[in-house]
């Protein structure tokens, strides 16, 4: 492998960091240069991520492109990166949403420099989580991804933004601290002869020795679960999420709902299920119960919202219920579907927030009652919105359909009731999405909006087209990504299933 290829992950990770540093040095008045740097950095990561997607060896599976640099040896910390099929899909998702977000953010007018610096910092954190194979750095990047959101929402947001952003940051930090205590207990649990944060070494120890005793796994797993499920967000820890989405500026909502929430489910699969398979086998049935609340309750609340961003926000927690159901199913099909849905939902919800952000910039309201007939003035955005809604409600042809189907088929065997509720949740989803399309986009045009302007330039249209194209591409031809995800999911799920079989 060429050095470039060997360090592809570090390159992906460093690109947004470097962009943040460069942006620091650019004078704040040179707005166009700043935007260009942000977009170019995002484009580079996207190209690298697509390349990674193609060169990852699905036959060999396992962690690839690993590299390790001792960082603080006396404390057992090493900078170690590597990806398996799950992480590759997540890296691809992050880079696409980052690119779309950077393009959408060209409409930001105030403190452009600070905005792009924070966006780049947030993305660095997210990439870091997805590629880290060291628990210290995993946590480091996890926290790094949470805090920039505070300022992104607090300054550029709308509505009750100060309350929303504080709630979001404190919730996520509280979750992170719980997870940290769990991680440190895991570190000192004597899994390896000398304590280490090296995820690969810990994983080997679990495979070789069968892991910790059942009792310890059953104590540690809920700590990690609660910590990471806060960001997932699992009911009843979800209440930060809809108001956070609603208050955030477009690009922040996109990153947030599109990518940040996926950190939680990813961490549950990557760390909790991998290192504590027996704990997972004992506790995942509880997740299957709680996720029904996500699906039904989240969907029901979404039906009653008047603000479009709240509709999409609650629909996100409803969709995350399917992800959690897939994870809880302990079947390769269901969990692969969950990861695929993380990808598909990330793209779809980013598209939703980008489109809402586009007209909100002009209307300054997202209240369904104030809108109406927007299709007449915004045909391009409107058509894309309808397609987004179709994707979201699970129309075949979009990636969401394929992934939700995988989740439901995968979970049927173990949790038939939850699966039936999940199918019912799709009907609720169709209700609020179609209601939103009807009220905001169809019907007579509210005369207030006679002067609205549609997305006309390529620059304005490109983020929407990128996202929609991705959804359609993987909707019609899901095989490459499903193969990829399955190669990563299979060993983890099989270990949990084996643990469950052994534990009775």
């Amino acid at each position: 492998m060429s050095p470039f290829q060997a360090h592809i992950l570090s390159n992906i990770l460093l690109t947004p960091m470097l962009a943040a540093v460069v942006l620091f040095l650019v004078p704040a008045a040179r707005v166009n240069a700043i935007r260009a740097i942000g977009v170019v950095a995002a484009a580079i990561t996207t190209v690298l991520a697509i390349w990674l997607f193609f060169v990852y060896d699905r036959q060999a599976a396992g962690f690839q492109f690993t590299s390790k640099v001792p960082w603080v040896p006396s404390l057992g910390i090493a900078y170690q990166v590597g990806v398996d099929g799950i992480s590759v899909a997540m890296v691809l998702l992050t880079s696409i949403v980052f690119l779309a977000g950077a393009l959408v953010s060209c409409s930001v007018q105030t403190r452009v420099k600070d905005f792009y610096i924070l966006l780049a910092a947030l993305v660095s954190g997210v990439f870091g989580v997805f590629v880290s194979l060291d628990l210290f750095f995993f946590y480091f990047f996890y926290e790094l991804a949470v805090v920039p959101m505070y300022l992104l929402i607090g300054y550029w947001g709308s509505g009750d933004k100060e309350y929303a952003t504080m709630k979001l940051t404190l919730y996520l930090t509280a979750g992170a601290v719980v997870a940290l205590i769990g991680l440190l207990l895991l570190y000192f649990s004597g899994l390896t002869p000398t304590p280490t944060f090296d995820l690969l070494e810990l994983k080997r120890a679990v495979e070789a020795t069968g892991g910790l005793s059942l009792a310890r796994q059953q104590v540690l797993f809920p700590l990690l679960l609660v910590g990471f499920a806060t960001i997932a967000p699992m009911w009843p820890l979800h209440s930060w999420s809809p108001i956070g989405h609603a208050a955030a500026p477009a690009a922040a909502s996109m990153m947030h709902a599109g990518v940040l929430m996926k950190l939680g489910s990813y961490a549950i699969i990557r760390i909790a299920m991998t290192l504590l398979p027996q704990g997972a086998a004992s506790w995942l049935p509880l997740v299957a119960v709680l996720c029904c609340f996500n699906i039904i309750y989240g969907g029901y609340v979404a039906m009653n919202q008047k603000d479009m961003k709240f509709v999409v926000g609650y629909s996100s927690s409803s969709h995350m219920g399917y992800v959690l159901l897939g994870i809880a199913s302990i079947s390769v099909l269901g969990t692969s579907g969950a990861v695929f849905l993380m990808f598909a939902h990330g793209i779809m919800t980013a598209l939703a927030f980008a489109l809402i952000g586009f007209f909100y910039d002009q209307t300054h309201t997202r209240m369904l009652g104030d809108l109406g007939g927007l299709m007449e003035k915004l045909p391009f955005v409107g058509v894309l919105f309808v397609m987004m809604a179709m994707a979201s409600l699970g129309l075949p042809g979009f990636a969401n359909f394929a992934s939700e189907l995988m989740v439901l088929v995968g979970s049927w065997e173990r949790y038939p009731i939850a699966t039936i509720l999940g199918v019912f949740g799709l009907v609720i989803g169709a209700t609020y999405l179609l209601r939103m399309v009807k009220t905001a986009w169809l019907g007579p045009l509210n005369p207030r909006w006679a002067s609205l302007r549609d997305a006309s330039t390529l620059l304005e249209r490109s983020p929407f087209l990128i996202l929609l194209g991705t959804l359609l591409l993987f909707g019609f031809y899901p095989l490459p990504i499903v193969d990829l995800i399955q190669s990563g999911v299979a060993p983890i799920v099989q270990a949990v299933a084996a643990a469950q079989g052994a534990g009775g």
Partner: protein
Amino acid sequence: MMDNSQLLHVYSIEAALGVLALLLIAVDLLKGRGRLTGPADAVRATAWLGLLAILAWACRLTPDATHAAAHAGRAGAGSIGAVASTVGTLDAFALWFKRFFLTTALFVLALSGPYEHRLPAGRAEFPTLLVFTTLGMCLLSSVNDFVTLFVGLELVTITLFLMSAWRPGLPRSIEAGIKFVIIGALAAAFLVYGIAWVYGATGHFDFASVRAAINDAGPMSAALKLGLLLVVVGLGFKIGAVPFHVWIPDVYQGSPTPVTAFLSVGSKAVGVVLLMRLVYSVLGPAAAAWGLLLAGLSALSLLMGNLGAIPQQDLKRFLGYSGIAHAGFVLMALATHSIDGANAILYYLAAYLFANTGAFLVVIVVSRTADNSHMDRVDGLADRSPFLAFALTVSMLSLAGVPPLAGFFAKWMVLRAAVAQPELLWLVVLSGVMIVVSLYYYLCVIKRMYMRPAQDSGVLEVSGLSRWLLLGCVLASVTFGLWQQPLVELARQGAASLF
């Protein structure tokens, strides 16, 4: 016995500081001669050069192996006869703190620059007293017996009394000075009384002999326990641990801001260095029984500091409460009684130094026009001066423990050390809750800067030196947060020399 050359070897930095202080007085006396532009400027310049030279010297010094070697010998032989030095030690731990105190002194000197025009008189004496205080602090890093400990502590405390009441025109400053004197005297009384009990119980003043008396002679006598407890109380005042924290908010608020910074970093670290000596050098293995006491103090400090900081409306009081909370973290690491804990404390103090210096410098600049430090002085700071707002944001986030800043790694090290001790799990959980609470109030400061309109549109001048210092603090917070290895290793050497 120790001959003079050995004494000079251990205390070379202190000797140099003493010479520097006398030199500053001499320079001040030259004011009538007309050769110097102004006595205060000349004194300040001399103090700068002197402290920089001494810091350079301190960085060149290498720690003595004798202490550690003697320690190893003692551990092997089970007796304390091998300890050579009774007057002081220059181990890696002492050297770490000497460098720390000299850096702090330089920072405070730099902080007093933009504050100077608010000092009515005694501008030349201020750096002189600062050097004397630093002398006391460096002395305490090497201290190896209770008598020197008391002398050094009095030197630090008395000079700080004077500095905290440096603005006689301001009732608050007088109040701060008086409160500090009374509480300081109380703390000193506890300490000296405790020392007397320790001496009465063991017949020794030097740490090694007391340690031997504690660890070799079966269970500790009540008199000895009382004495040590009183010493802990006396030092508890210094670090501002609850319930000995009552003086902190008023004294912090009333003192001139550079002095507040000195109190919050230097004076607190003095308490920490002595507590560490007490726990590791004097108590030694017997310290395990004291873990619960330290953990209790830590829990109270975490609760009081973090919850008390929430309603504060004055930046300096706010930083005072936040300092109480940080004392709680340091005590938590101390309660682990492990080398990882000691390592974490040293790293924590370094992170705290850079974050707090940056914060106080911003406080000085924003409170210049109104001469008060009400929280609304930072409202809209991001519009008035993006650089200051950025620097204060970095300071606040580092104090809150957010990556990629040094404060994050420091907190992480403390938690790592504490989780290793199963009996401290309750404290870890409490501190976890308090981390979230602390993030709330630090974010509130950031909220004021970025999301509130400015109260005052006056120009904020940041002089060249202040700008560089602020930039340095920001860079240090980021560097030590991302690339921790060099500082961790240095701290580890210091921590290891205690065991």
